[in-house]
């Protein structure tokens, strides 16, 4: 009797529970995919600077006005938690219809089958606007899993007044690492440092800038990739380490901080230069005290000025009900004026030449835009982007090992060994 009662109760409660939660996720139901039917698409954007958020929202609003049948809803996500969030969203079947992420992060999702092949849906116009090298960063086996939107490069920001004082003029097409070290040394005096470098999360910086010295880090792709750590790969950490501990021209404390944490020291003249992603320019503009003069130095150069192209991406979930409509919105987003608007808001480099030209025209190349846009030409695909377990290697192996080395707790040989052996461990 007791058992029967319990079972009955359990069943009835299940039904009620299911009934109250029924309206949770599938509000655009029907799902036939025909474009005449009205659908609402969720667009999870990771834009975080005020200017970019505004630009992105404007794109969405313009689109919604012109496309009453395909409404897009702006949803705010965050770079910090995007990966964990997407794992749960895919798992729970609540992934947004348009997913904003970056190429290095989506490799795992591609392999897990979560992302849709967009090649049948994207327009020829979009396909032609982006160079093949950049398409390669979001493709696998001839299928295209995302549209690349914006590129980031690492640049050197400098305090103009302090450069003048020290008699340094940095012009030309590029700034060699040797010159950077020499300048930083010259600018170091009286408790002030030539360079502040927020390297709390060092892996992305080291791997991207590693291309300066043709650092590969991996051979092969997917699960079969092998780690390849040699002098070329270790050149960037070694040079940073030398500057911090031999020349003492980088503040070692800054190496433990995040990019934006070192900016107050930059405004206060404690650091004459800082290295960071070019998006930091927007924050400098907003926060720096009045009268603070700064500039962007020419791109860093080792054996070349190459950096890894790790574009931001827009993807669509494979289980999405409206892949075709989502791709149409992505086409629209990729139009030159739209990409230019978000790029300008974030100080990032659009993937299409037309959008870069639009920014150059709008800004007149001022405030370092000239140098920023030029650096975009040197961005190419790096091997780590197609390695499935790269995120795990990055978190568990590379980041701790690099942090340890940059804190002067281990030597270069140990770093190399850790990076190499660690790969075997996480990829087993």
């Amino acid at each position, binding site marked *: 009797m007791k058992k029967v009662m319990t079972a009955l109760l359990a069943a009835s409660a299940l039904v009620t529970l299911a009934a109250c939660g029924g309206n949770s996720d599938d509000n655009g139901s029907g799902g036939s995919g025909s474009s005449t039917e009205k659908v609402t698409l969720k667009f999870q954007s990771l834009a975080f600077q005020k200017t970019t958020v505004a630009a992105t929202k404007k794109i969405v609003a313009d689109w919604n006005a012109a496309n009453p049948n395909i409404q897009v809803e702006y949803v705010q996500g965050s770079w910090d938690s995007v990966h964990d969030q997407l794992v749960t969203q895919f798992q729970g079947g609540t992934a947004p219809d348009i997913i904003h992420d970056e190429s290095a992060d989506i490799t795992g999702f591609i392999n897990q089958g979560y992302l849709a092949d967009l090649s049948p849906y994207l327009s020829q116009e979009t396909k032609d606007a982006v160079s093949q090298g950049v398409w390669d960063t979001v493709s696998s086996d001839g299928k295209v899993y995302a549209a690349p939107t914006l590129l980031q490069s690492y640049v050197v920001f400098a305090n103009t007044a302090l450069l003048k004082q020290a008699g340094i003029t940095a012009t030309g097409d590029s700034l060699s690492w040797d010159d950077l070290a020499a300048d930083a040394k010259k600018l170091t005096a009286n408790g002030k440092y030539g360079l502040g470098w927020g390297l709390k999360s060092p892996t992305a910086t080291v791997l991207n800038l590693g291309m300066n010295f043709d650092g590969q880090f991996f051979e092969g792709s997917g699960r079969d990739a092998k780690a390849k750590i040699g002098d070329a790969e270790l050149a960037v950490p070694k040079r940073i380490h030398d500057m911090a501990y031999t020349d003492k021209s980088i503040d070692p404390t800054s190496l433990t901080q995040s990019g*934006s944490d070192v900016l107050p020291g930059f405004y206060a003249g404690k650091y004459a230069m800082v290295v960071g992603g070019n998006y930091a320019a927007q924050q400098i503009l907003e926060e720096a005290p009045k009268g603070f003069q700064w500039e962007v130095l020419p791109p860093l150069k080792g054996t070349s000025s190459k950096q890894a192209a790790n574009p931001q991406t827009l993807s669509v979930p494979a289980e999405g009900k409206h892949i075709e409509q989502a791709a149409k919105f992505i086409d629209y987003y990729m139009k030159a004026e739209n990409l230019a608007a978000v790029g300008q808001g974030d100080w990032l480099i659009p993937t299409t030449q037309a959008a870069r030209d639009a920014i150059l025209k709008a800004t007149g190349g001022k405030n370092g835009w000239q140098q920023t846009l030029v650096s975009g030409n040197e961005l190419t695909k790096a091997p780590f982007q197609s390695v499935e377990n790269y995120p795990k290697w990055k978190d568990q192996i590379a980041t701790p090992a690099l942090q340890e080395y940059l804190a002067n707790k281990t030597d270069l040989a140990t770093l190399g060994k850790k990076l190499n052996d660690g790969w075997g461990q996480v990829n087993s």
Partner: protein
Amino acid sequence: MRTRPTARVLQYVAVVCYLVFLGFPLLWLISSSLKSPQEFASITPTILPKNVDFSNYSDALSEQGLVRGLMNSLQISIASTILVLIVSLPVSYALARFRSRLRPITNGWILVSQVFPVILIVIPLFMILRPLHLTNTIPGVVIVYMVWSMPFALWMLQGYVAAVPRELEEAASVDGAGRLRTIVSIVMPLLRPGLIATAMFTFISAWNEFFFALVLLQDPDLKTLPLVLARFVGAEGQVQFGPLAAASVLATVPSLVFFAFLQRRLTSGLLSGAVKG
């Protein structure tokens, strides 16, 4: 107890140390929330802001997610508190009054539920809630909070129920009142302080909860305040500390108000409940 003067002095020194350790962080947070962005970026901080600037608050409040997070948190916390009380009261009554076989089982469950790391629970929980369409919904989080704050509610309430003199109930049952009526009309009023303390505890643990919400809520419109705040911490350390500090102060206010209202009752309630238990 007589206290010697030197001991007295030491006591006061100790109290001051405790006051600084416990109070200074909050003071700093409030002061930070009132500083302008420029003052914030200054490398020589001052304890009190030079100019009181409320722009961080307006920034934080204009951030849509924050206000919505506040509302979501309030909704979830209040709903789960009410549910916990409704469900726990009869159970704790039964636990305190009857010697049934369910008692050792329940107490065992209470203990086990404290010991298990949530990571072990959250994945299956996710899998159970998904077919019920309760992941990524507020009702889903509410019932999860209800179940997971029950152990503590039962602990607390059991003690309070036991402290209610049994004679009162017996008198009522002699008068012919049924069990349910006895509970409602005799026991409940006497349990007021206990119910308040339990409500307070449940509210605060729901208000503060992070992990379940992190996994169960993905839609930004549904996120609770702690999740919204954690998101503020931003990408690659792009932290806007000013608005963040303002938002943090705002997130502390509801519990503090709760405290202010119930402070006296809470401490005496908590204490008596715990001791009598």
